[in-house]
């Protein structure tokens, strides 16, 4: 689904290559400043990096902005809403769905009681849930998530991971940045380890996380 070769974005990324197939849930780990977010933004088409990025065998630069919008979803680490919209309004704007689906999705994400709340009154975790719900409503084929578990309590962390897991079982692909290696071990099909702008290890969690000493500094971070 997504493959990229020799991505360079000076000075952050150096010769990064990899592939992400349909049905795969890959967790990306690495210390702060390793280049995780930059790689994610590059793959989302937000940064003009050198190298080749193919989405469904077509170069990313040849996709139209609308085509890409329905194909891949992207969650920034700090999603924001400048104007003070209600939760329902945000889902209506971002979700591209009918009101029935908006209502249904709000119930699933436990946002129904908050539907008339204004975004600026919500906690960080609640805000994160709103944007996650919007992304899943858009139902893209590829999801790029920058620290989706940030601010969420353990219950909702499990819920998000379950959602992502079910999502990939439908043949969709997810690449997400995590700091909690235990979560990665339990839920992900694959792990990518970033270090100093390079993708230094790729494999299943059991292979990668046990073999690599880099796992340690990752755990210490944050």
């Amino acid at each position, binding site marked *: 689904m997504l493959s990229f070769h020799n991505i360079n974005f000076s000075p952050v990324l150096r010769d990064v290559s990899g592939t992400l197939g349909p049905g795969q849930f890959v967790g990306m780990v690495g210390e702060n400043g390793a280049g995780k977010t930059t790689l994610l*933004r590059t793959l*989302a*088409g*937000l940064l003009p990096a050198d190298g080749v990025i193919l989405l469904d065998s077509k170069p990313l630069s040849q996709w139209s*902005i*609308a085509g*890409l*919008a*329905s194909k*891949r*979803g*992207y969650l*920034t680490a700090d*999603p*924001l*809403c*400048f*104007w*003070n*919209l*209600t*939760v*329902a*309004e945000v889902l*209506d*704007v*971002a979700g591209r769905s*009918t*009101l*029935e689906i*908006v*209502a*249904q999705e*709000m*119930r699933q994400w436990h946002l129904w009681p908050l*539907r*008339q709340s204004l975004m*600026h009154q919500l906690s960080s975790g609640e805000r994160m849930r709103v944007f996650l719900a919007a992304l899943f409503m*858009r139902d893209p084929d590829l999801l790029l998530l920058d620290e989706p578990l940030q601010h969420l309590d353990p219950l909702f962390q499990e819920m998000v991971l379950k959602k992502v897991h079910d999502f990939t079982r439908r043949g969709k692909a997810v690449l997400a940045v995590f700091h909690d290696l235990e979560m990665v071990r339990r839920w992900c099909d694959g792990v990518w380890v970033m270090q100093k702008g390079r993708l230094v290890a790729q494999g299943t969690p059991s292979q990668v996380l046990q073999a690599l000493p880099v796992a340690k500094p990752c755990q210490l971070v944050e």
Partner: protein
Amino acid sequence: MDSKEAKDSLGKNPRGVLFVLSFLILFFVVLELLCPLLGFFDPLFPFLVWEVRLPRVLSAFLAGSALGLSGAVLQAYFRNPLAEPSILGVSSMASLGAVLALYTGLYALFPLSLPLLAMGFAFLLPLVFLAFAKSFSKAAPLILVGIAVSSFVGALISLLLNFMEKNYALLDIIFWMFGSFADHTYQELGLVLPFWLLGIVLLLRQGPDLDLLSFGVDTAITMGTSLKKVWAPMVSGVALAVGSTVALTGVVGFIGLVTPHVLRLWVGERPRNLLWPSALGGGLLALVSDGVVRFLPTTGEVKVGVITALIGAPFLVYLVKKTKHAVFS
């Protein structure tokens, strides 16, 4: 059932707001047309209504709606509560055109030259902005560029006034720069109307993209829009709607800034929901200000720009204090 409740939580019903605004506009239009300064049976009454008051009411509505809608679109685009039509330099360039028409004496020979020249100058700067659109990927530098251009043009106008030998046009220029809806002909209105209409339609169509821009540039791009996509229709829309009406009425301040802020208290902050109400609300504000101008007992008529600033400025300060919104804190 759920979807009905979901719909209810989408904020105030914009249709209800539009209905109330339309009713108020109609009320003020009728009031200003028929208010009997002369007796109803005076033979001059029909002339007064059709040739003096109706063009005045129409030009007030056209200018006000263009300013209100442009303010709402620009604030949403720049995600900045201070954005208003003047930041694109449209009004200041129109002033320069008008000043030139008055300065060169062209206006005295051919009265339509003033709106024509003002309109031409108003469109000039946005054309430059459009040409350089590729080099702007962020919103904040654009606001600074707009402020710089406005100051530059303002200085040019002052310079022109200094060089003026005869003083007869000086008063005309100063009066024009404060804006007035009075003394416009149907011919002038006809000249402005097509540009105004095209501009308004262009601006009203940007709602969904402006909604997405609320989430920041990155998220907006991944959801299918970008600052660049909205730039061209927005700049053209503001230039056409505001440029054409400012060319007619002169600079009327504060309507573009205040209208969206007032309406946010009523319809919520979703950019798309603000567009139609801002167009109608701006028109209403212009009508009311013009009404105040007409009924103030002064010797010479006060210019409407004076009234909008006198009412608008303190009201804005009140809004900033009253609204406990993140935008203001």
